[in-house]
């Protein structure tokens, strides 16, 4: 039993995107506690991958492949978690690119970085209207709402989310980012968090919840 958990960990470390789902199924069939498989297997694996990336030992595609492997296994293991039990995470982040903006890559990188650092990420995709951010933030009980905008014309959409969000739930933190977004702008629209790149977003998220 312990062996298959280690195998799951190694499958993430070795980016076994295609075969890890079968391994996860095998774990469930063998009666391994899905939460143990996630915490001691997948989470440990992605932590190692994230650390290697942080040290500059591996490159972004390797980190993304590690995250993809984890995602494939989670798709099998999460539904097997008994009702009422939850996995331990560093926090829950709701993320998306704001309305009228279809830029995806920066937002996806932040998602990957957060996931590889133990956060649970709910990704709403691109062109997300304010009301969707607000509705989902309540639904999934997000600790952080993260928004991306790549155009000066769509930046104000972030302010449109932050004001009502804070009114509904003052404890929710926000992080904003994207090419034209600055720390100065973040302060002006009342966002606690800002990051100029994807790696920085993880530190910001940790600080906000720490």
């Amino acid at each position: 039993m312990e062996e298959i958990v280690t195998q799951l960990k190694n499958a993430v470390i070795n980016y076994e995107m295609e075969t890890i789902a079968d391994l996860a199924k095998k774990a469930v069939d063998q009666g391994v506690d899905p939460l143990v498989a996630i915490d001691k297997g997948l989470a440990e694996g992605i932590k190692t991958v994230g650390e290697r990336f942080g040290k500059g030992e591996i490159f972004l595609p390797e980190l993304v492949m590690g995250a993809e492997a984890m995602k494939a296994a989670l798709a099998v293991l999460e539904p097997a978690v008994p009702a009422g039990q939850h996995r331990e995470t560093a926090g829950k982040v709701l993320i998306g690119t704001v309305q009228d903006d279809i830029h995806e890559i920066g937002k996806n990188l932040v998602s990957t970085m957060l996931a590889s650092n133990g956060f649970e990420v709910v990704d709403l995709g691109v062109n997300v209207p304010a009301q969707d951010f607000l509705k989902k933030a309540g639904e999934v009980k997000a600790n952080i709402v993260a928004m991306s905008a790549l155009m000066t014309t769509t930046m104000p959409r972030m302010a449109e989310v932050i004001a009502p969000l804070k009114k509904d739930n003052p404890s929710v933190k926000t992080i904003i980012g994207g090419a034209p977004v600055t720390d100065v702008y973040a302060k002006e629209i009342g966002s606690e968090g800002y990051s100029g790149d994807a790696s920085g977003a993880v530190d910001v998220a940790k600080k906000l919840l720490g």
Partner: protein
Amino acid sequence: MSYGIVRGTRFQILSKDDLDRIHWGTLHILEKVGVQVDSPTCRKLLKENGCEVDEEARSAKIPSHLVMEALSKKKSTITLAARDPKYDARLDLNHSYMCANGNGAVAVDFETGERRNSTKQDLVDSTKICDALPNVHVHWPMVSSTDVPASVVHLHDLEASLNNTGKHVMYETGVTLEDAKNLTAMGYAAAGGEKEYRRRPITSCLQCTYAPLQHDAGVMDASLEFAKNGVPLVFFTMPQPGATGPASLVGSMVVGNAEVLSALVMTQLASPGASVIYGLGIAPLDMKTTVRAGGSPEHAICSAMGTEMAHYYGMPSCVGVSGTAKEPGIQAAMDTYTGCVGPLLAGADLMCGIGLLEDSSCLHLEQVVIDNEIVGAIARLIRGEWADDDTLALDVIEKVGIGKNYLAQKHTMKYLRTDHFMPTLVDRRSEDAWSTTGKKTMRDSAREKVKEILATHKVPGLPDGANRDLAAIIEKAKKPLWGGESKVH
């Protein structure tokens, strides 16, 4: 002397076979994979003309014959007319022109050094500087006026640009149909009416496609409106090799080419003969920092290949250069030089652009002046050399004879003006002379130049009547956006 950079020396990256293969590969992708077209108007247009359109996926597969038809309707020479006609930039596949970079949202305050949101005054200052610099030929609004209401930022940017330079103004991205109408109207007003504008378009618009293989609805609707109104367009593709395009540069060229050609198809179907420039700025995603590697050698090579691709189709190119340096200095100079020299050697028609740091985000006025100097040096590098009676100078060599010098020859004075680059910032004095005048760095000299330009350079603004029209267009377009939040910040 003609305006712009005269090109003599060329280097070639892709062979004719390579270009053929990229072209055929692109046609294959357009037919087999297609592109996402978010605009229902454009999907309808494509469907009516024989494309296989999937309404649910919002995608269109484009048959090769439509691409070839669109290419047969394109223009090969496009003149970006200027308010002051001596600055007309004729993109004729034989001259190169430089733009300053554009649409940054941050500026480092020239007086206080504070890094802050950019303002309309920053745009006015940088526009004046670009007007004064000899190696910035076409104007891009360098930063956004983030201190005006969000709904009219682009319009204020255009107003400030038109009033502070006599050079052609290319604005980047009109992202809604309404934007397109207002920006067109402002161009007409500044030119003295639609008829005069159509004869001499003093503005143009650069539109970005979205990698991989996507066209935003607002951008394409606006593009068709611009084309109808006689506003020249650039379709600018920016896949990032390894992220939003294949890691092989040529693979990303295919993705980019498919985006530009599909945009060209839609534009030429709607407005046959519309002026469209082939735009491309492909820089990899840096796989360690997750930042776009602007100013990298790959960026330069892609801009060079983009130019070769454009010229293969007989279209003028507009290709990118940028830098990731955080302050004026050694890295910034390296980024600009690396990013510019390759594409200019390959014959880039229009290069955008110099002067912004942090990958096209942050304005430092000194950097604009420094980059102007770098472009001047490159212009000399690529001008080309030739041997004729006058350059061979056999008569002069004979006259001077053995062991004398050429200082007092008329031939020397003549060729000094044409063959020798005369720097304005590069300091070639002796160490002794340099240290007795305060050991000024290039950045110090650039600051002095900025101060001098801002204090002395005068640009005649638009006539009062035109300015009243512009103000009226802006006032009418101003509206509270999204629940009263009416400013960018």
